[in-house]
């Protein structure tokens, strides 16, 4: 046997009931010296257990198909692993273990004939009923990164350079990783024991439910003295049975006559909504041409509506998946992230609406005051402040001696447009309270709606600043370009457009002369243009950052991992972030075994613990978004754009909201799909009068500190 180096590995549930009775250790045998203990069946004969395992008696009365256990745990059958608390003279199979446990022994003492040293790995069993589980990799709160392709498919122009750079970096790194592989001097093939870890993780997740099942069935093993119920117990039993029968009868009445009608109506309503949503979504997503922006890319409100609709389309599907979970063992952990995602979005919407109601009633109550404030702010900042700054620029600002004629011309031009715009705003003023009232009313659909509306309102009411910025940037950019090409002429070079390089070129004298004169002229006019450009660029930046604040608020309202955060505080076991091991001291463990006569193989005791998901991982999406925004706006490229007067492209909404799509599938389910899913929902099982099998018919009760002293209840 190649891997037999005498190392035995035993996984032992730390919360297994400890008793000093004789017992049979049952569990999985992953490989010869790699065993996983599930349960200790007490006071039974190994022979009987063996036959019971073969016949499947121990897994009888399982609520769900048994084959699923074997499939997920990666083993074809359960095994007897050894005996506990036997005397030494009992002859056992050499591969079996002898375990010594007891209420006072914290760590079982284990010997095995074939093992020269032993690793005992103690673990706390996660409770499947509470949806606890462990996993090797952190739980994924976001949907898989299918939106990555979705993004690449849509990316255009602005971020292409960034993305190409990033891709190149990735490719380079990949190459380095490949190189690193060549440096490994020698490649081991992992042994069966090393490859078993993912399987073992599954087995740990199953441990609780399986042990329960087996303990339930222990009574069926072998021939054992049956104890009949006492009289008082019988009375109690018949009384409970009577109560149950009445309840079941009432319940049946409801389920048969009332429930189907309600359900039918509900499904019809749902479908009607779904169709309406589909129509709206088509409008929102309509693009005149594939490259053009859709409504949702331009307007924050449209985006917000779209998200809500998408969520609405996704919820039924999520709910159906979660319902299907009920038909399986509780230990199947695949749908737990779905569960968290589903309730997270429900919570967020509920929160949003609650905050929205408060906000909305405030806005409606104070709509006239708010309208006054807003119009005041508008005139003060978007008209008067701009006017005063332009007049300041027209008169040699800060001692800069600008070209007066050009400054006068530009200033008059902009002032004239502002004048016109302010008259537009004047006409708008009477409507403003109604708009505010409308915004307040919309906030009953969630606080995110008024925020989105305000964001849109800001962009509409500052459109003149945007156009000023565009105009001045264009003028500045042209001038700069002309200066650069004239400078090339001055040096006797020219820009070769075909080859995209600088060629040397012989100019005539008159060409040179005119070029140089023009260069000088334009150069001296440059500062005047620059100050105007800077003025509007700064105004534009302020507006962009204002909108960024709104967007941040929106993203917090829409996608804050609230539910996950609460879970993390309430029950960290439900958010596994990996596992860790702790090496325990063996010293006290040795001392606990008082007789030192028995030779014990060298043993190390290791605790396996689940690491709860870190807060950083929970907010990973936010960090990513922050990173993306930072990279977009604080990159040297943007600075260059600002300096050369090129248009600074705002960050694409699609990019900004990739966060949002991480909670939603890239492609929403169609109407028919949803219909099929909803109608295929399994009808709830008829609830029958529960039949209780006495837990242990031989009268042995669990010790009161069952479960290692932890109180257990299904939450």
């Amino acid at each position, binding site marked *: 046997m190649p891997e037999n180096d005498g190392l035995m590995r035993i996984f032992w549930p730390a919360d297994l009931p400890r008793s000093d009775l004789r017992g049979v250790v049952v569990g999985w045998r992953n490989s010869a010296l790699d065993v996983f203990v599930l349960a200790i069946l007490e006071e039974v004969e190994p022979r009987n257990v063996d036959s019971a395992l073969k016949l499947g008696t121990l897994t009888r009365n399982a609520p769900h198909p048994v084959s699923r256990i074997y499939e997920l745990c990666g083993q074809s059958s359960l095994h007897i692993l050894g005996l506990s608390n036997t005397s030494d003279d009992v002859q056992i199979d050499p591969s079996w273990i002898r375990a010594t446990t007891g209420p006072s022994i914290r760590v079982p003492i284990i010997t095995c004939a074939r093992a020269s040293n032993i690793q005992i790995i103690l673990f706390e069993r996660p409770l499947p009923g509470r949806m606890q589980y462990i996993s090797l990799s952190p739980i994924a709160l976001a949907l898989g990164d299918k939106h990555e392709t979705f993004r690449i498919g849509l990316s255009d122009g602005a971020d292409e350079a960034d993305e190409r750079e990033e891709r190149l970096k990735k490719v*380079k790194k990949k190459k380095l990783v490949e190189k690193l592989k060549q440096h490994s001097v020698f490649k081991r093939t992992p042994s069966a024991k090393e490859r078993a870890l993912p399987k073992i993780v599954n087995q740990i997740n199953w441990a609780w439910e399986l042990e329960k099942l087996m303990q339930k069935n222990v009574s069926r093993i072998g021939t054992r003295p049956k104890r009949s119920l006492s009289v008082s117990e019988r009375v109690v039993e018949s009384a409970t049975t009577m109560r149950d029968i009445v309840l079941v009868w009432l319940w049946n009445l409801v389920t048969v006559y009332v429930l189907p009608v309600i359900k039918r109506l509900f499904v019809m309503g749902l479908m009607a909504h779904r169709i309406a949503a589909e129509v709206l979504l088509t409008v929102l997503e309509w693009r005149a041409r594939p490259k053009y922006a859709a409504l949702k890319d331009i307007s924050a409100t449209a985006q917000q509506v779209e998200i809500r609709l998408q969520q609405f389309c996704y919820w039924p599907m999520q709910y159906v998946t979660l319902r299907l979970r009920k038909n399986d063992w509780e230990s199947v952990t695949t749908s737990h992230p779905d569960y968290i995602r589903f309730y997270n979005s429900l919570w967020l919407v509920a929160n949003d609406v609650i905050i929205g109601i408060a906000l909305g009633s405030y806005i409606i109550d104070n709509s006239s005051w708010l309208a006054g404030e807003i119009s005041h702010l508008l005139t003060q900042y978007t008209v008067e402040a701009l006017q005063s700054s332009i007049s300041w620029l027209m008169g040699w600002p800060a001692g800069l001696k600008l070209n007066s004629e050009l400054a006068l011309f530009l200033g008059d031009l902009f002032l004239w447009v502002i004048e016109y715009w302010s008259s537009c705003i004047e006409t708008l003023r009477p409507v403003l309270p109604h708009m505010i009232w409308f915004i307040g009313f919309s906030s009953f659909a969630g606080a995110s709606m008024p925020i989105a509306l305000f964001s849109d309102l800001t962009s509409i009411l500052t459109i003149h600043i945007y156009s000023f910025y565009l105009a001045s940037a264009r003028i500045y950019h042209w001038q700069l370009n002309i200066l650069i090409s004239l400078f090339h002429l001055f040096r006797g070079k020219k820009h070769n457009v075909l*080859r995209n*390089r*600088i*060629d*040397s070129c012989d100019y005539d004298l008159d060409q040179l002369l005119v070029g140089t004169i023009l260069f000088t002229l334009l150069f001296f006019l440059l500062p005047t243009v620059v100050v105007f450009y800077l003025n509007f660029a700064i105004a534009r930046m302020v507006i962009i950052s204002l909108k960024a604040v709104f967007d941040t608020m929106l993203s917090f309202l829409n996608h804050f991992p609230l539910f996950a955060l609460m879970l993390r505080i309430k029950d960290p076991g439900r958010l596994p972030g990996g596992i860790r091991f702790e090496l325990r001291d063996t010293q006290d463990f040795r001392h606990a075994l008082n007789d030192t006569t028995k030779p014990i193989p060298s043993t190390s005791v290791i605790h396996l613990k689940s690491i709860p998901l870190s807060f950083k991982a929970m907010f990973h999406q936010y960090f990513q978004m922050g990173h993306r925004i930072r990279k977009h706006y604080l990159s040297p490229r943007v600075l260059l754009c600002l300096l050369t007067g090129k248009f600074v492209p705002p960050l694409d909404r699609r990019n900004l909201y990739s966060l949002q799509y991480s909670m939603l599938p890239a492609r929403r389910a169609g109407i028919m799909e949803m219909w099929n899913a909803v109608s295929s929902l399994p009808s709830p099982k008829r609830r029958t009068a529960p039949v209780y099998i006495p837990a242990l018919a031989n009268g042995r009760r669990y010790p009161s500190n069952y479960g290692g002293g932890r109180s257990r209840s299904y939450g």
Partner: protein
Amino acid sequence: MAPTYNIAMVSDFFYPQPGGVESHIYQLSTKLMDRGHKVIIITHAYEGRTGVRYLTNGLKVYHVPFLVIFRSATFPTVFSFFPIFRNIVLRERIDIVHGHASLSNFCHEAILHARTMGLRTVFTDHSLFGFADAASILTNKLLKFTLSDVDHVICVSHTCKENTVLRASLDPLMVSVIPNAVVAENFKPLSPSENPSYPPPARPLGPHDIITIVVISRLFYNKGTDLLTAAIPRILENHPNTRFIIAGSGPKSIDLEQMIEQNVLQDRVEMLGPIRHEEVRDVMVRGHIYLHPSLTEAFGTVIVEAASCGLYVVCTQVGGIPEVLPSHMTVFAKPEEDDLITATGKAIAALRANKVRTELFHEQVKTMYSWENVAVRTERVYNGICGAISEGEFYGYYEGGNSNANSWSATRGRSGVQSFALIDRLKRYYGCGIWAGKLFCLCVIVDYLLFLFLELWFPREGIDVCPDWPRKKRKDSRE
């Protein structure tokens, strides 16, 4: 048994950047390692190459992360390199610091610091410089500073030696000439068996056979690219059955391209762009003549490589080039347009007349140049400065013949090895010039104080010593 040394080669120029200095350092280090020495290379970080690296033969390269300013020469941060240099020297237990290339700040700083730390230093000069323009004056001053306190200087050609001695006012006895070499095996002419896609030169060349002229050089001003740009159209005009292949890149490549476009020579001039050092041979064997229009050149390894590939060499008569190859392999030209064209014409005519036996060049070059020889001679320099061979033997004079050894060298210490005492060093630096001398002394004093501070702050015991790469058994020396 001759002693073996731990040697640190320091230069700004090393792989992955291609070039003559780079391959010189690599070849020399390899051969020295074959002779049982331990060699490490200290250079600055290149794009994507930072940190410690082992090359396949166990040569260890430290790519020190530092700022690069111009043409991969580092910014002169006189003292900031000292802590890390000291760390490397101590962990590798270096005895000799060998700097390369006078344009490399790294090398100058390392020599200064090494002397402060009490190590032996050698400097190899690979380039020629003028005396007139501002940049040269500055570099010369810097060179003078470094070379005031160096144990020995190696130059790659006699012209280079003259130049260096003049620039740094050295004692000529301190300067040895060890030429570069080529790995002749890597530059074999095309054998008929390999690769029939290039037509093997049909001998004898008829008057209508096409003659290909190869130029491989970085396209900079000092490599004579402007000369080339001017000469190519005229050469092609005079000789109808000729072609050019130009490999290399640089700022002047646009001029070349423009020249090709203006004269519509696309089918007669092929620009290959930058090529790797391994590909040089493959390009060379495609041609018959190698044209080297350089304006200044200390040695010109590339013409040796060309000759080794069996190419007839046309080159400008500058710098150390005339020393490199025997006259029957070369046609010399003055570094001007007309003369270059005439020389090329002569070469073409000679080839057409079958006067040149280019197929013999390879064997001849092979006997002339080998890196083993360079390594042996360099090792002798090391022995000399470390006192392993006597002064007399090293400098070629006999103690019996000339007894007043004190007087014959002012710049070098009496015993043939430079004294490490600070006062002696300061004396040497002080002689550099009226103002420069004082400035240099100040630098040295600061450096020394820094050294004392480092000894306190990062004590020697705290520095991990590297395990050595298993040394090769020393081959029997051919001394």
